């Protein structure tokens, strides 16, 4: 590790690098489930995120064309969009969605691939995700892939050319936190591309734990959007991701079973 705790005071020396582009923030956020566009914008700003996920959907024919637009609320000049394939249950739909996103966003090729296999658990369909990833990479896309917390599968995605691998911590939208920290650890140890926990984070400590495990970043949506005060939670998540990252770089003390005094024992008055 080239970066030490002493040099990390400024985020600019410890950037998250995805597909050759550096980002000061290691927190990526979704833009769904907010009350309105204003709340979306305020929460995203408070999170400090530079990469935001967006969904691609059919337009409602006849809707008010002046309705608040996501692309206006979060301008592409300030944020890196990460179009996702959320809601896709097969490779073909995911590939179509990415191609439409590229057309919509003028050639933008960074995408989040997510192919779901179960409506109940929202677990990914790995065979379909592999198939879609292969087609998309061949087609020139930079693929950040949502996957389960299987270290063998994670490595496969990295080897085939995905620019980031994003294992779930718990089911999407569950807020259950890091259910299997050992698997996340395995994935991080084997990593050749950035590893981001995507899905399952419920509160700030979960995000900190993900970062302390050595993840390169965290992607979340519901944990912020479904909080009682989303803007405040967005700020908490920003701090948690930064704190977790610094703790990881600092290197924690070894765990001990018994107490160990931190004041000198010599010179006591008794």
């Amino acid at each position, binding site marked *: 590790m080239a970066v030490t705790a002493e040099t990390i005071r400024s985020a600019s020396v410890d950037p998250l690098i995805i597909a050759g582009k550096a980002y000061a923030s290691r927190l990526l*956020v*979704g*833009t*769904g*489930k*907010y009350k309105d*566009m204003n709340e*979306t914008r305020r929460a995203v700003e408070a999170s400090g995120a530079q990469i935001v*996920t*967006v*969904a*691609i*959907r*059919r*337009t409602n*024919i*006849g809707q008010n*064309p002046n309705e608040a*637009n*996501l*692309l206006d609320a979060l301008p592409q000049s300030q944020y890196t*969009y990460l*179009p*996702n*394939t*959320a*809601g*896709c*249950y097969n490779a073909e*739909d*995911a590939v*179509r*969605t990415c*191609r*439409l*996103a590229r*057309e*919509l*966003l003028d050639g933008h090729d960074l995408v989040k691939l*997510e192919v779901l296999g179960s409506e109940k658990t*929202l677990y990914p369909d790995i065979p379909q995700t592999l198939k879609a990833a292969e087609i998309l990479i061949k087609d020139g896309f930079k693929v950040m892939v*949502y996957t389960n917390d299987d270290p063998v599968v994670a490595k496969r995605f990295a080897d085939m050319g995905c620019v980031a691998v994003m294992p779930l911590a718990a089911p*999407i*939208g569950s807020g259950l936190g890091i259910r299997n920290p050992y698997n996340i650890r395995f994935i991080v140890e084997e990593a050749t591309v950035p590893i981001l926990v*995507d*899905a399952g984070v419920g509160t700030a400590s979960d995000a900190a734990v993900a970062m302390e495990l050595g993840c390169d970043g965290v*992607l*979340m*949506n*519901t944990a912020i*959007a479904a909080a009682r005060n989303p803007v405040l939670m967005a700020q908490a998540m920003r701090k948690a991701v930064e704190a977790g990252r610094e703790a990881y770089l600092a290197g924690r003390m070894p765990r001990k079973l018994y107490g160990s005094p931190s004041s000198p024992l010599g010179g006591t008055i008794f």
Partner: protein
Amino acid sequence: MKIILNGQEKNFATPMTLARLLQEMGLGERRIAIEVNREIIPRSQHGAFELKDNDRVEVVFAIGGGSRQMAVAPGRR
């Protein structure tokens, strides 16, 4: 001429280009992406693209989203 627009049947008296269809539907100003019969039609070609009877047109745009959006992917319903 019949067009299936985002899964809904629309009938038009005269043939038209894709750009004209978008205008008719009030989508001329919006930032959108289009598929006709599962082929993406780049924005630069909307003006010249002549629609045919029974063409399936998908018009999509970007909305807020993380994961677990309940809506279906384009083309499925």
